[in-house]
């Protein structure tokens, strides 16, 4: 058992989960208190000791389901191709059961049978689970079954269903069908593991963790996960930028500590004690490229700006392509990000000539219009790939900004090895910054935030 567990933890680490030695030991300790036959308890005990971030849970589940795949019952898959016609009905009946427990049991049995009949799994054949899932589903017409169940539901009601009731009914059956799908998937996985062994399978199941997803190639699902992880990170960023100026300031009088101290001197307050000052609110100014070459990145950029606007009181944001405009107000009033993005697209004035980024022109325009509003309290973040389409760099603007502002940082969504190749001129700007950072995923953003402390 211990060996299996060690292998499991090795796989978790390979998938990117930061399992420490303490946690490794804790998981072994925890298992001593869970009866071996209690599979749910077993999984929960491992999760509670090994996974300390919800964003990692999906990966944990995927690895767990493969590594601890329950063995097949003796005799292997049952192949009873004799009852072709009835399987549809069987599935339908299983899904129709009102009581949840009996439904789940029936669905499980029906799913097993469906896989036996239709997946056509052959030992040693190197195809993935998705292929078999697809094959099975093609045979059972799940949509048709759901439609028939809905019709039955309507018939059972003593009145014509209202629109709301229709929605509720549809939602319920959609969820049941989803359970069936998951059961079929689970059954296929079980057989694949039995055939090829967990080591081979676990490798194919590896997907990047949310913090490793490249901003430039993030899909809609990824973005949702990114957004959840971004919120706490932004807060940390706020705290970091806020604290940096703490030491110069002194907080208000701490009466209690003053007295406490004075007691050593016979009650004479020889030394006055102060409270730690509250971190002062940082002023942050974000300048972001939202041109086509960084389209996915700019989506993320706007997420970042949005998250920051909700946490810092003094964030000003500017976006540019070859023209530049302030968009702070769109974030302030916005109900949600898509609203802000819509207004930026329709109301902000950022395309001047041809819609290809022109850093030089945008920076110069920024300096002329807003340069005088920078102060030694301002931290400036520039987000972009510095691909300037061979326009003039106007790097002097960065030098001017750096002279006034407290700090200037450049975050670049491109791999460092691409910097200063082709029309990328990041170095010409970076020399004037406090730092230029590769920022392709949340992990790198987190590293940047840590660098600030």
């Amino acid at each position, binding site marked *: 058992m211990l060996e299996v567990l060690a292998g499991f933890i090795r796989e978790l680490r390979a998938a990117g989960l930061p399992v420490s030695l303490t946690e490794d030991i804790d998981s072994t300790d925890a298992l001593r208190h*869970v009866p071996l036959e209690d599979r749910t*308890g077993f999984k929960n005990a491992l999760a*509670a000791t090994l996974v300390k971030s919800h964003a990692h849970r999906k990966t944990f589940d995927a690895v767990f389901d493969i590594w601890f795949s329950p063995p097949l019952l003796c005799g292997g898959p049952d192949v009873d191709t004799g009852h072709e016609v009835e399987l549809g009905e069987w599935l339908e009946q299983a899904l129709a059961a009102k009581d949840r427990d009996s439904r789940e049991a029936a669905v499980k049995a029906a799913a097993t049978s469906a896989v036996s009949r239709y997946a056509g799994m052959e030992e040693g054949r190197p195809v993935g689970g998705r292929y078999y899932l697809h094959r099975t589903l093609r045979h059972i017409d799940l949509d048709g079954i759901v439609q028939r169940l809905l019709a039955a539901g309507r018939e059972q009601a003593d009145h014509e269903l209202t629109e709301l009731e229709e929605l509720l009914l549809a939602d319920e059956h959609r969820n049941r069908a989803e359970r069936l799908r998951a059961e079929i998937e689970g059954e296929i996985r079980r057989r694949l593991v039995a055939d090829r062994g967990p080591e081979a399978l676990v490798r194919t199941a590896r997907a990047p963790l949310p913090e490793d997803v490249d901003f430039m190639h993030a899909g809609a699902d990824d973005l949702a996960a990114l957004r959840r992880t971004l919120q706490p990170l932004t807060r940390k960023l706020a705290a970091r930028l806020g604290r940096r100026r703490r030491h110069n300031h002194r907080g208000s009088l701490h009466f209690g500590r003053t007295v406490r101290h004075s007691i050593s001197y016979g*009650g004479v307050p020889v030394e006055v004690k102060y409270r730690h000052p509250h971190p002062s609110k940082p002023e942050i100014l974000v300048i972001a490229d939202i041109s086509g070459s960084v389209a996915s990145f700019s989506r993320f950029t706007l997420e970042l700006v949005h998250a920051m606007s909700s946490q810092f009181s003094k964030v000003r944001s500017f976006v540019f392509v070859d023209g530049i405009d302030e968009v702070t107000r769109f974030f302030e009033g916005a*109900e949600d990000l898509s609203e802000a993005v819509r207004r930026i697209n329709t109301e902000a004035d950022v395309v001047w000539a041809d819609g290809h980024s022109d850093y030089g022109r945008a920076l110069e325009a920024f300096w002329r219009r807003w340069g005088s509003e920078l102060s030694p309290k301002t931290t400036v973040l520039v987000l972009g790939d510095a691909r300037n389409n061979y326009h003039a760099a106007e790097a002097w603007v960065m030098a001017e900004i750096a002279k006034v502002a407290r700090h200037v940082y450049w975050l670049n969504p491109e791999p460092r090895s691409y910097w200063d190749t082709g029309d990328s001129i990041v170095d010409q700007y970076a020399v004037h910054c406090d730092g230029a950072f590769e920022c392709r995923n949340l992990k790198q953003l987190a590293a940047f935030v840590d660098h600030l402390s």
Partner: protein
Amino acid sequence: MSAPVRFDSGTQVRESLARVGYLADDAIAGVVYLADRLDKPVLVEGPAGVGKTQLAKSVAEMAGARLIRLQCYEGLDESKALYEWNYKKQLLRIQAGRHAGEVAHGGGAVAWGDVEEDVFSEDFLLTRPLLEAIRATDPVVLLIDEVDRVEVETEALLLEVLSDYQVSIPELGTVAATQVPLVFLTSNNSRELSEALKRRCLFLHLDYPEPEREKEIVSARVPGISEHLAEQVVGIVRLIRQLDLKKVPSVSETLDWAATLMLLGAKSVDADLTRETLHVLLKYRSDIAKASKQLAVGGA
């Protein structure tokens, strides 16, 4: 310094929690059980209103333990979390000493050393929740609520206390726990907690419950509600949670809504009633508008 084992199994925890009105699933019950067995704190994370705080309260109730609660906020420091000297009382004592001395001997005869020792005694100590939990000899559950709100420095202090369950007070010496209390920390995940703190804890993510469990919660917390109404309520809430909203309803809103419907004497909910009461579930106007439209309960 280990406490006597409180529970026998996850299942037992789940059943006992149900008896005090908290409906846990296997994951929740399992973690509570392990926390007791392993003497480890539990970090409960999740969106607002899913029962994080209530879990600690209900565990205390079921274990017959006293709940000690440390409510976190920005700026919470040692003096409010751990202990503080009662300086007002100390000042008064010092003043009183001077007075007495003057009257009796016509000149400060009370030895300063005595006064100093006196004012740093138990009587002048203000015990805050962490110290209180450590000193407790009766069964206690310590709840450190909304830990993501404190600054990093205070988080480090919490970690220190949760690592050795002892506190050293320079003037009094070290106070060590005679038992390890059950500890729950809750977090809304508004800020990333330190790796060290997370390593120290068992982790439990609470999410919006499965409809079956949410229905049980509604039945347990809203007296007199019918099975039918509870099912409808939970079904509609589940529909609403699938929409892209600014703030999706949590368990607390589900309960508020169910209670409102009961007050209105509803036997079941239809489109009209949903529209009229949607503001109990949703806080933003844009969310209400969106939900009305998607649920087809909009204009009558």
